[in-house]
């Protein structure tokens, strides 16, 4: 290989490197305000949320009575997992329905768990008494479960079958018809 060709190749490599560096630099600058958000998203990595037909996201919580619970504790019977808050209007509107579901849970062989988000123990204790709520409740400290279930805000209800698979979910207020239909799907799923 001739010296001039080698020099030309080396020169081109240097230019290509400089060009790539500058391209990177320019792209960072021209990306504008969204660049930092994009970086954060990239750092955060993928966070698969719940989906119908997919295994429900595992959780670790403590009920208001201090009992440790997780998704596994509910395996074997369908679970109605309701995210709510004592300060939330639509949650309070749908709470009689959740309470009715809980009242019929033995007959239907399913269970109900309320997960309170952005709430306090004292507020929950009192709300439970005031609204005569009969189902177990847990406080989602630091919003860990809410975030893993990818909920923008309460209320949200997940209908999980006996094998821990999400069979339906309602992000927003629940109606009786919708709840019964979703529950039927969770109950109809194979037990084993």
């Amino acid at each position, binding site marked *: 290989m001739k010296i001039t060709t080698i020099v030309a190749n080396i020169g081109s490599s240097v230019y290509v490197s400089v060009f790539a560096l500058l391209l990177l630099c320019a792209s960072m*600058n021209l990306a504008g305000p969204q660049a930092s958000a994009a970086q954060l998203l990239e750092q955060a990595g993928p966070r698969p949320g719940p989906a119908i037909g997919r295994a429900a996201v595992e959780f670790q919580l403590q009920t208001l009575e201090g009992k440790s619970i997780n998704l596994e504790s509910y395996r074997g019977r369908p679970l109605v997992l309701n995210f709510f808050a004592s300060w939330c209007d639509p949650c309070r509107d749908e709470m009689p329905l959740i309470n009715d579901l809980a009242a019929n849970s033995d007959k239907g062989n399913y269970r109900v768990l309320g997960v309170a988000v952005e709430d306090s123990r004292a507020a929950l204790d009192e709300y439970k008494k005031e609204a005569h709520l009969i189902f177990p409740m847990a406080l989602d400290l630091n919003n860990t479960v809410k975030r893993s279930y990818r909920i923008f805000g309460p209320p949200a209800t997940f209908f999980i079958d006996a094998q821990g698979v999400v069979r339906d979910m309602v992000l927003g207020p629940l109606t009786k018809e919708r709840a019964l239909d979703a529950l039927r799907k969770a109950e109809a799923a194979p037990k084993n």
Partner: protein
Amino acid sequence: MKSFLFRKQRIWIYLAGVLLAACSSDLAPRGESGGRAEPVRFGTEISLGKTQANPAAPFLRAAPDGRLFAVWTEDAAHQQSAGLDHASHNGSGKMAPSPLRDLLIASSTDAGITWSSAKRINRSDEAIQAEENGPKIAFSADNRAYAVWSIPGEKGDKTRANIRFAVDDRNGWFSVAHTLNEVKDAARFPIIEFSPDGNLLIAWIDRRIDNPKPRQLYLMKIAADGQAITKNYPAGEGLCECCKLGMAFADGGKTVYLVDRQVNEKQIRNHVLRKSTDGGASFGAPVEISDDGWQVGSCPHSGPSLGRDSRGWLHVSWFTLGRSENEAGIYYSVSKDGGKSFSPRKLVQANTAPEVLYNNLTVGADNTVYLAWTNLDPENRAQIFFRTIGADGRWSEIQQLSRAKGDANRPTLTLSKNRLHVAWTETDGEASRAVLRSAALSQ
């Protein structure tokens, strides 16, 4: 061959030159023409209130004399001394199902470095509401303080609450609070501002007419001595039931601007601006700020923020999910024609994960817009983020202000003596604290 090599070199050099020019605004010091606005350099964190009393829901406001004031809530003092973890009203169904909290106020004469001892504003046991529904203060031109806050309704329902009001009695204390909403158990999310016309204007979301939903916007005008000038009066309807409001004045108080989140019959929740030209007595038809198209059956508990600059431009920031999760984030828009129209929305920061984000803005004397909001960090914790929009329209880089172990939420901002102050609540498990960071501004 040689001439080809040089031609090739020239092409590369030319391309490098073009790219160097594209880079230059990034390499140049911030604030130079064409680049981003200078980042704001904040001091270290200062905690407001007694840590063991779980301070939360701070709100900041500077008095006209330059003193910086903060209000926040804490676990009720008498319950702390009794050694109870969570003081609350009893469960008789006649009392509030919330922990009792005190509303405290303190001031700083050195722009937030040191603080006076905190004074309690409320005199009776109250379950003062916080978060989106937190306490607010305003100041008259002669530095008199006025406070509003919300407490749950008589049957304990937080969503059927009452608005309490107290005035600084000029002897170092506050008057005995009274309830502003004439129909009990119907009002939440109060804001209070001292109008240039010398009176207070208080606005809130009201559910006295609870059906058909959604809620109404109610106002009340109060004189500087704390006496009511008007009764409660409706100023709008169709409000999203649980998001804070924003207010600004112009023309010596004759013009009043209000922003709120509206909800239509299809459950689409967009933000609107309402304008009054008679001091808040009546308002024109709401002007949509942005057609975000967020259709959601529940309330996000995250309202907009409004500021007006010396040119009369109206700056608004808000959170929306938009028409898909990919659109979710904090947005900004400006009206340069007194609220007749708004610029297309600009993304302040996208959501990093499904989460309702909270935002606030304030506007400096030099027309710089200061924005603070929450977003999730890579560890999935909510943190406070910040950026500015210069008077020339240049945006600063995003800065992260908090390093919360748990979550940091609901930032509030104010300006005093060429300093910017941002405060927020940090929660970790069942504990909370109120945090303040301040920055000197180059004017």
